[in-house]
């Protein structure tokens, strides 16, 4: 019993907010991991990050108008994804430009809403909550909606899995197959927006980039297939989310009379540590030896810029 006490401070397993945090953390980590692997494979990390800024706008706007932050995060993300598609996020030449324009204008709106939020409630709580999340204060009644939206997002990814995969490598090959290239790309952008919105309530809108990209970037280094990368990314994301919740809970007891440290700090730090460890060649050699994956080890290959293609 004492051994358990070392890791779990009293009341961890009995706490309602902890239960909610563990469920929301795991579900959003899984959706982020699956969508994240495609984001990394498609080279759309910048678009993913722009959607987190758009989610900030939606979250701060929702707070100002008194509606659910989840609705704000996801609604604005979907609108942002549509805007990026219209400006031309799918064309290689205008991809970064489309992303930049949407990112810039959304962040401007976020500045307005965050200012209004602060003057309205006269606290800094809103800004902290929107940008960096507050997983311990989530209303348990949110869980069903989060689970349903997560299941829908995963279903969409499963539905377009192979057309989405081939379109990540060659637009020409995709069109020649009679696949609706733009439709598939837009569906993925919407799935990415929903995924970012979901993880925004867990780790905050700004940090949802970390949950989207981190586990995925780590796992593509260590696996030999897209499916394996998704499974590993889910595992890493859930472990980071749960350990983050545990450390944040325990941190109440680390410093006398403290408020405890933010969950998102722990989650994101763990993800970053995973990424660093996966870069060690001894780790890659070990994984390669265990799985016989023929991982590229040694000299880091120069990454071909997607913009050149």
């Amino acid at each position, binding site marked *: 019993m004492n051994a358990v006490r070392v890791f779990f401070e009293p009341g961890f397993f009995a706490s309602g907010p902890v239960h909610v945090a563990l469920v929301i953390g795991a579900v959003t980590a899984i959706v982020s991991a699956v969508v994240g692997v495609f984001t990394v494979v498609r080279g759309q990390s910048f678009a993913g990050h722009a959607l987190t800024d758009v989610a900030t706008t939606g979250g701060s706007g929702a707070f100002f108008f008194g509606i659910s932050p989840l609705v704000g995060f996801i609604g604005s993300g979907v609108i942002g994804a549509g805007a990026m598609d219209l400006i031309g996020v799918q064309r290689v030449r205008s991809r970064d430009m489309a992303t930049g324009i949407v990112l810039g204008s959304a962040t401007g709106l976020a500045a307005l809403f965050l200012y209004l939020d602060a003057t309205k409630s006269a606290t800094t709580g809103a800004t902290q909550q929107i940008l960096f999340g507050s997983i311990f204060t989530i209303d348990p009644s949110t869980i069903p909606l989060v689970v349903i939206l997560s299941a829908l997002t995963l279903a969409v990814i499963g539905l377009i899995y*192979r057309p989405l995969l081939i379109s990540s*490598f*060659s637009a020409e090959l995709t069109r*020649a197959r009679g696949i609706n290239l733009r439709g598939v790309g837009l569906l993925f952008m919407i799935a990415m927006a929903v995924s970012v919105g979901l993880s925004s309530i867990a780790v905050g809108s700004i940090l949802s980039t970390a949950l989207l990209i981190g586990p995925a970037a780590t796992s593509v280094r260590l696996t030999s297939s*897209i499916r394996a990368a998704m499974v590993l990314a889910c595992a890493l994301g859930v472990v980071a989310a749960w350990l983050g919740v545990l450390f944040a809970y325990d941190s109440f007891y680390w410093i006398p009379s403290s408020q405890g440290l933010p969950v998102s700090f722990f989650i994101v730090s763990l993800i970053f540590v995973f990424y660093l460890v996966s870069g060690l060649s001894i780790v890659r050699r070990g994984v390669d030896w265990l799985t016989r994956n023929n991982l590229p080890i040694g000299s880091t290959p120069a990454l071909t810029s997607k913009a050149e293609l």
Partner: protein
Amino acid sequence: MSDPPVLEVEKICVSFSGRKILDEVSFEIREGEFTGLIGSNGVGKTTLLRTILGMQRPDAGVIRVLASPLSPRSRSLGYVPQKIAIDTDIPMRARDFVALGLDAHRYGFARRTAHQHQLVEEMLHDVDAERFANHRVGSLSGGEQQRVFIAHALISQPRLLLLDEPLANLDPKSVQEIVALLHRVARDHRVAILLSAHEMNALLPVMDRIVYVTDGRAASGTTDEVVRSEVLSKLYGHHVDVLKLHGRVLVVAEPGQDNEDIPQHPTFTVS
């Protein structure tokens, strides 16, 4: 010759913003034929291939595949585009990319059957890619990647395989290997090949027919009809010699011409 041609291209016209790219281009390809689509960079070879694939609407003209009008998702066509971008950091094995050739256009969940896995194994064997089947596509050499892309295109058993400049950026040894491989799979899989290139020397040993494009016009003929000094000189716009030496054919341009598409030296000779 009672079979219909695999491909009939009839008076195809394509223009981009008023500029004519292809002007009444006509030719046909018969079963099992190896056809070279020859022309300098920018004359519309890619546009012609994209039109055949149904990705570019012609202003006029008809394209028939196996005597029936083309539908955009015609399964009778295989395609290897000029650029397929798979970085080393993408976990995509050669074997998985070949398998994707079976079902990349399918929506929804489905497990591949034992028969499909068998097809992938056979295809990897046919293009001599078993050695690196479990390596990431991005980590392979240019020639190895071309084998994987050819297998990806062939696994759905098309009757016509279109390749857009597959020999560009390959070293001379890989060029020879890929040409020999295409010649072999074309025969074994009874698939006709239409391959675009700006340089024909490497293709001379295997080409049955040449379609040459210049200034939006195209003409075609058997290799013997086209590889003649007066025809090639007209095609390139200045004097080209075709030398027959000890039973070998050499295509040589006059030296000192400032045109990289014309072989300045007999870099490749043909028996």
